[in-house]
């Protein structure tokens, strides 16, 4: 049965079309040398097709029965055609040979990145949550108008568990998939010892998203559970120690190896990564410049950036982890 919006032969789809590459969404352009070899392995591994008939397996956008292979005509569905449309379908392969696997991959990755980076540049001055490049945005906390319910749960839950501990209670929306009803009920029974009445947000839990270049998903931390930069820093280290630069692209598996040698802290010290935040005006600043209280009041979100990306940010102490408890 044909379910397609495109015209592609059925047979070709039985095999995994080599034209449709495994895309490295977690990769950054730096890692390409590592990734392309991996991806090569993946593509070749298991799939028996030696005859790479790219043309036949090419997935195109087009009306049924349309024989036009040109992308231009296909894009005619969306007119007027803007340069952005090229980015619309970055996954469609070039009609070239297999040799272009690596370059394709690079193009795609950078294409994707361009899309995100463009977005980011465009909106860096706009107050709003902008999706950081390269990673999957997992933090879709519904911050839409009044959505007290979900925030409440997270607050009461976090409060219940992490009253005195500086350790981060990482929050990811909707994960693990447990019904809010159950979460609330359990939060209320575990937090019976605390002052918190469940359901009511404590004196403003202050959740900010924390993202890291190359990490596949974001985390959230409650700034109110910390009293100084040092605590925040160690919490973040713990949270992100599994997503270190060397593991870009190979999500999970290799990333999980005991990376005691390369810890986030070391990277931060070595200024490979810097911790930055977006303040109320939408500017990205280096963390550590301002007193803690002011920081908690103005910080909208946190980002662990690569040192090179942070050039040009508001000057300040790069080594935020050398603390200096600014209370």
């Amino acid at each position: 049965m044909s379910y397609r919006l495109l015209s592609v032969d059925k047979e070709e789809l039985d095999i995994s079309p080599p034209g449709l590459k495994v895309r490295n969404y977690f990769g950054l352009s730096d890692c390409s040398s590592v990734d392309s070899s991996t991806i090569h392995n993946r593509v070749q591994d298991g799939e028996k097709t030696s005859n790479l008939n790219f043309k036949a397996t090419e997935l195109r956008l087009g009306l049924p029965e349309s024989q036009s292979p040109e992308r231009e005509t296909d894009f005619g569905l969306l007119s007027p055609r803007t340069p952005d449309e090229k980015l619309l379908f970055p996954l469609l392969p070039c009609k070239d040979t297999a040799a272009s696997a690596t370059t394709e991959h690079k193009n795609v990755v950078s294409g994707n990145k361009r899309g995100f980076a463009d977005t980011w540049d465009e909106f860096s001055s706009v107050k709003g949550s902008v999706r950081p490049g390269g990673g999957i945005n997992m933090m879709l906390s519904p911050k839409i108008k009044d959505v007290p319910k979900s925030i409440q749960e997270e607050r009461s839950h976090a409060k219940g568990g992490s009253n005195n501990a500086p350790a981060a209670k990482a929050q990811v929306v909707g994960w693990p998939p447990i019904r809010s009803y159950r979460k609330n009920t359990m939060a209320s029974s575990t937090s019976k010892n605390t002052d918190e009445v469940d359901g009511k947000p404590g004196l403003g839990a202050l959740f900010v998203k924390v993202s890291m270049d190359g990490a596949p998903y974001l985390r959230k931390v409650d700034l109110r559970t910390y009293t100084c930069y040092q605590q925040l820093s160690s919490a973040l280290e713990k949270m992100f120690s599994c997503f270190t630069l060397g593991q870009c692209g190979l999500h999970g598996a290799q990333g999980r190896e005991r990376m005691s040698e390369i810890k986030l802290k070391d990277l931060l010290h070595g200024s490979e990564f810097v911790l930055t935040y977006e303040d109320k005006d939408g500017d990205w600043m280096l963390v550590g410049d301002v007193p803690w209280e002011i920081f908690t009041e103005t910080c909208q979100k946190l980002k662990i950036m690569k040192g090179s990306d942070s050039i040009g940010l508001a000057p300040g102490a790069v080594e935020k982890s050398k603390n200096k408890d600014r209370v």
Partner: protein
Amino acid sequence: MALRLPSKVLKHILSFIDSNEDRNSVSLVCKSWFETERKTRKRVFVGNCYAVTPAAVARRFPAMRSLTLKGKPHFADYNLVPDGWGGYACPWIESMAAKSPYLEEIRLKRMVVTDDCLERIAASFKNFKVLVLTSCEGFSTDGIAAIASTCRNLRVLELRECIVEDLGGDWLSYFPETSTSLVSLDFSCLDSEVKISDLERLVSRSPNLKSLKLNPAVTLDGLVSILRRAPQLTELGTGSFAAELKPEAFTKLSKAFSNCKQLQSLSGLWDVLPEYLPALYSVCPGLTSLNLSYATVRMPDLVELLRRCSKLQKLWVMDLIEDKGLEAVASYCKELRELRVFPSEPDLDATNIPVTEQGLVYVSKGCRKLESVLYFCVQFTNAALITIARKRPNLKCFRLCVIEPFAPDYKTNEPLDKGFKAIAEGCKDLRRLSVSGLLSDKAFKYIGKHAKKVRMLSIAFAGDSDLMLHHLLSGCESLKKLEIRDCPFGDTALLENAAKLETMRSLWMSSCFVSFGACKLLSQKMPRLNVEVIDEHPPKTRPESSPVERIYIYRTVAGPRMDTPEFVWTLHKNPEIGVSKLAIK
């Protein structure tokens, strides 16, 4: 000329057919069968309240007595759907009030129900008997009071995990003073105290009461008093199961339970004090369903209880049961059909969840009738999955939640592809599947190839590329509901398999890489799908290539819906953004 069955005969035949799936097939045979079927269908099920208009339903099924409606997508349970998205019951109630006044039963799931709505129900349906609200919100105990006081023939009133504005326990006193026809009452999700005397009186004048689920505010004393008045209960949800330890309290409780000789299902058990658990021993041998998922009790106490439950078919428990406890379940509860193990610390960072894959393997080996599994744990192995598939090919529902996203097989460091391949291949009757852990596109190739009966599939943090989605949409023939979050696929597979979406009830995708442009294109080309982009930031402020936050696509014959909030974009709402002309009905 084909033999035509007289409609009277057909009617009689159809009176034996209850399953709506069968009835749907009957109605496709020919026009006269369609007509006869629709005039005789009493129980109507609408899986998506926006797929069809209330008027159309009322028109088609004049004999409707029972209506079941579902509103928000399933991921709303996990806070992925912002408040205000929709799923309002009112239009349905209004329409039914006008057109189907003989309606007796209403069951709603994940819908927004207001007090007005409830009052309307109470006022409009003279013979109203059954109200079941699951995961609903938007109403208060005032609405419940209206139902209680006005529906004289009320038999079932169940509020399951609803969010209710609790204005106090008075609503209980609104039931008719003379005897009630109550068979089932569930107010376990309400917060505030109810007067025990009200409850006692209600129970005393409800001779048909079989199922009663109390809220946590009811104390053990209260429970004892209720049980004394209702020893005929078959289903009981206790209140709080803790109290100051007093020997006479324990004895009274024990005695009360031992008088309940017909008790088959037990739930509630909030704040369990383990010392009170032995009071339940007398009912254990008869229990078929036990929900200990709120009972923070350690393994030894759990095992003491469970080893007495030889007839148990359904067990919900927390991971405090540990692998060892599950091993005990495997040896004592041979009739087990459904197992759910919930995490006691529902936290991403919790690394010491006491159950491992071994626990599930034990149960799979020991309980031959096991067909439904929901299991939370930190990590898993391919070997375990393969064993489970081999031992339990009769699995119908397999939901595994490996809490750490992207967690591979922790022994071999490989993705869990092989394991889920075994599940898909081995469990041929699998109807519902949730996958987790590190999974590559291969896993979905296997699932697409083998899981031919899977109707509902849930995926998070998995896959490598569009191939993943492509395999699923082109392979899973029976797929009706697909929900995906945080997976790295984009437009291609979705557009490629667009027509498949009309054969499904719905598709949910959040935090993937589907672009706004693709959503527009899909909307334009597929008028019988509602494509909703649910995004904090209106898509028109971003380039078309940028991914949207959430997409909800569902087939519908009702056309675009008119009650979308600001943050939901549909093509209908913003036709100026679409480009080509579009037939908007």
